[in-house]
Each structure stands twice: as structure tokens, then as C-alpha cells.
């Protein structure tokens, strides 16, 4: 993942799956092969590449990665479903993760969640807002406990979010 990759995660892509590992992406994958002694070692980075390109990891993405790395789709799927940051179904254009583990919890994190659910129109955790713009989930400790409440929107890690700051925060995400 380069430092210059697009900030936002693509929205719900229902169009037919286009292979990811062509052209420049294929070249990047080849470079990755040099960094691990086995192709299997490239699995997590390759899955990130699919998610960055397509917004989530569909079955076809799993199959494509499996083929590129010489693994079975079942094996890849077992890995994908283990790690919570990989989306196995489409999500809103902007994916919002709010930490609610105890250090943030005792500093009002659950109020921040409520405010976000209301402001985005999602209504409930894990649901995508009617306009397709947002999905909000609770997540576990984000490692910013001194700055409650941290929120990860797509690849933007923002901190010290309070219910009052929520609407201002969302304005930047179309």
C-alpha cells in the first residue's frame, strides 16, 4: 500500500468483477514476490490490493488471488474471514470504524457511536446508509487511547472525536 493511495474506499460495486492483477498491479505483485520467500507470504498484501481496488473482496477476488499465489480459494477464504478489516460484502462509500473498547468506552465512545449512527443515517451498526455513503461499525482498541474517541474513516485516522464534532467530521466525505 503506497502512501499515496486513494483515501476513500470505493462504494458498492455490483458490476461484473474486473481482474485486479493486470498491468501496474501485476507488476506490484511481482515485486511483492521478491519480498517473501513464498508466494503464500504475499497473501495479506495481495488481499489489501484487491480491497483497495474494488472496495471489498468478492468471491471472484478470492479466486483471483488464489490463482495468482497458487493457493486454493478455500484456503484464501479462511484467511480473509479471519481478519476483520477485509470486507467480504460491499459497504458504503466510506467505512467508519469507532473504537469502543474500555479506555475509550469510559470516555464516552458509545455516545460517539450513537451520534455517528444518527448523523450518517445508518441507523444501526453494520448497515449502509440509504444514500450508500456510509457504513458504521464498532471496532476494538485502535491504539489511540489517549485521544478518545478515535475514528478510522477509510484510511483517515482521526482522533478526539466527540458527539459535537461528528457532523463537521462527516462533511469531508461525499
Amino acid at each position, binding site marked *: 500500500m503506497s502512501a499515496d493511495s486513494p483515501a476513500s474506499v470505493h462504494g458498492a460495486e455490483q458490476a461484473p468483477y474486473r481482474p485486479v492483477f493486470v498491468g501496474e498491479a501485476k507488476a506490484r505483485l511481482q515485486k511483492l514476490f521478491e519480498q517473501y520467500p513464498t508466494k*503464500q507470504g504475499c497473501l495479506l*498484501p495481495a488481499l489489501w490490493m484487491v480491497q483497495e481496488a474494488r472496495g471489498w473482496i468478492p468471491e471472484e477476488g478470492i479466486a483471483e488471488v488464489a490463482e495468482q499465489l497458487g493457493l486454493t480459494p478455500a484456503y484464501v477464504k479462511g484467511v480473509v474471514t479471519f481478519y476483520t478489516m477485509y470486507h467480504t460484502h460491499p459497504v458504503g462509500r466510506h467505512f467508519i470504524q469507532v473504537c469502543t473498547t474500555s479506555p475509550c468506552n*469510559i470516555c464516552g465512545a458509545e*455516545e460517539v457511536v450513537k451520534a455517528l449512527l444518527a448523523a450518517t443515517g445508518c441507523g444501526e451498526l453494520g448497515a449502509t446508509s440509504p444514500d450508500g455513503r456510509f457504513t458504521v461499525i464498532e471496532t*476494538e482498541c485502535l*491504539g489511540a487511547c489517549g485521544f478518545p474517541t478515535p475514528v478510522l474513516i477509510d484510511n483517515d485516522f482521526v482522533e478526539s472525536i466527540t458527539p459535537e464534532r461528528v457532523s463537521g467530521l462527516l462533511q469531508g466525505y461525499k
Partner: protein
Amino acid sequence: MGYPFPSHAKETVLLSRYFGDAAARTYDGWVKRGGYEGLKKALGMTREAVIEEVKNSGLRGRGGAGFPTGLKWTFMPKSVGPGRAHYLVCNADESEPGTFKDREIMRWTPHGLIEGCAIAAYAIGAERIYIYIRGEFTEPWAIMARAVAEAVEAGALGRSVFGSGNRIEVVLHRGAGAYICGEETAMMNSIEGKRGNPRIKPPFPAQSGVFGMPTTVNNVETLAAVPSIMMRGAAWYKALCLSSPKSTGTKLWSVCGHVQRPGNYEVTMGTPMKDLIFEMAGGMRPGRKLKAVIPGGSSVPIMTAEEIEDCPLDYEGIAAKGSMLGSGGMIVMDDSTDLVYQIMRLARFYAHESCAQCTQCREGTAWTTRILERILAGQGRPEDLDLLLDLADNMTGKTICVLSDSCAAPVVSGIKKFPEEFEAYVRQRRRAASSGSAPALAARS
């Protein structure tokens, strides 16, 4: 420094000296601040001498286990056998609730971490370093990526580091949302492209680690301390010690929760805990009293306000009080805290993060959570507390890794030290009288 606040007089500022100083992030900025001299010096020493220096410094693993670092390095084979490449893995998975120090090291002094990694790699005969950064750390990732590129360009990494003929390369590996990958053997599996399942030991990483090769795994803070040990010597580091002689150097304490000035504070080992909480971190909010402290990240036993009164901040001092230094993620809770609720929330954390291998952990973390949820919903029974303690006992010391034990720790210490909170829920179907509602924190600028 007490980042994001100005340094406090009682801090010993070493690792955190440049927190907040954006100019320290660049290669040139780091060199201007004396950076990479430690690496150059190490490259002029024998590997054994470097290891000996770190051993004598008393540096211990800062990720949570506190294992003597130099000793760990001696477990690696003395020479690299044919087809048996050595690896260094830097654990930047920082996911222990309450801990937020490694991210600051990466954000402000990425070259300091790179330098420490390179020295360690040289010492153990590794030519490749995997820095495993948790997937959520998007900013540290970007900063580290730029820093690695700069280091390569400047010759601080590459086929012949500073022309020494030693090859040292860094590969950044992005995690994807799994606390358990902070466990060293699970991390190695994750690097290999597998589910983050911890492995049984033996074999140990130094015999069979990533890709079956000899491997050492060290925490970010541990590695970041290495350059200054090279420059100023083991004796200097060892002398940074206020209490137990087995705990030397400085520790970054991530103080969070109900304090006026949450942030990272760097103190000499042995500094009194109450100084950290009440002076450096500004103590309680107005009108609030301290109720409980979890000193080392959520996996260690909870301490009461009385217990922290005379507790030195070092491995032995905290252990003597029945808890652990752990990662140094200090969660401070005042009397507005519903402790039963927070212990439930921690149990739920562990239930979410269990890898599912061991029966006790997979089922026990979820069961513990459900019992606590039921108690919180006003349907607790007196026998529930004994049940929770028995489950915790069944979950301790029986599994491949200690996630299961970590779930048990807050439950056991909570019930034993704060029985009135649990009794209130069970007998009166409500929160204990002393627990008010948690106010929202004032917005921080």
C-alpha cells in the same frame, strides 16, 4: 515527553524526545539529531559484542512479556547455516487496550525505529526485517514507508549498509485487524500468509520462526531503545534505575482514561506510580476520586486506588502488588466508572479477538461475556460470581497462548477486589451506589 503535553520534570526523556517534532521524521532531520551513529558504531563491532552490550544494559521486552532482550538475541544460531536465513520481526501490531506508545515512536521517530531494527538485525545475523504494522495504523504506515525509502536512498538500508558489506532490508507488512497477531507466533503465521493462529512452543522462534527459519521478534519500543544503548553504553542504561535492579532504562507509559492529561510519559524504571498518575498526567478530573487502575494494558489484573499508593513502576514492583507491567498501557478509572460494565466490555474484546483454536478460549471468552451481560441486564444470580471465577480458573494456564488468561485477569481481579460492585448488580439488580454515569469528556483541542 508527556506527549501531547510538554515534558514533565519527573520524566526522563529519551525515546520521546522528538515527539511532536515533525522535522525529526526525515532522514536528514534524524541525522542532525545524532541519528544513525548508533548503527554505524554497531557495524564496527562484532555481533557478539553488540549482543553483549544490550544484554548488559538490562533492556527487557517492552511489548508485554518483559523478557531480557539481549538474552533473547543469544537464542539465535551463532552463524547462519546454509538455507537457514535469519529474520528479525518488529512487532508494531500495538493492539493491547490502553497502549498507544509504539504509534508515537513510528509517527515521530521512524528513523529511530529503523536504526534500532538494523542494529538488532546485524546482531542476530538477519538480512531481512519484517515490520508488522497493524492495518488500522494508516498514518504510521505512511510515515514508515517514506522513512524506509529515505533510508534506502541514503544507504542506511540495502545491500551494503553504510558500505559495511552487511545487507539489511526492511519489508513493511500490513496487518488486517486481529489483536492476536500481536502474539509473536501468531504474527509469524500472519507474515507467512496464514490465519493468525498462535503456534505451540517448542519449537521456539529462534529455531523455527517465519518460514521455518530462525527468527527474533521484538517490540517497537524495545528496538527504539537500542541505538542509544549503542551510543551511551550498557552501564549508562543500566544506571537508569530507581528501584528493582532487574528493571532498567526508561518506559513509555501510555496513560489514558480518567486523567486530566492523557498521553505518553517516559519515566525511569522504578518511578512511583502515583507520581505518574497524579502529577505528570494531572490526576483526577474535578470532583472525582480514583477507583481503579489497570497498569499494563487490559490483560493484567486491576489494581485498587490503595494498591497504587506505594507502587514503583517496574516489573518487580508491580508484580509484587499482584499485577504486571505488561505493555505499560495504563487505564485510569475514577468513581464514575461502572466497573462491571467495563469488565464486560473487556471480556467482549477478548471474545472478538479469540483465534478459535483452543476450546477454553473460544467458548470461555464468549460465555464469560454473556454472563456479565446478563448480570448487567439485572438478571444476575449469586452463584454467577463463583461461576465466573471457576470459568476464569479453567481458562488460565490451559491454552496455547495467553489470550484466555488475559480474559480471566480482569474478571478475577474485578470480582475479588470490587465485590460490592458485582454484588450490587446481582442482589439489587442495579449499579453500585458509588458509580454515577460516565460524563462525556470535554472536547480536546
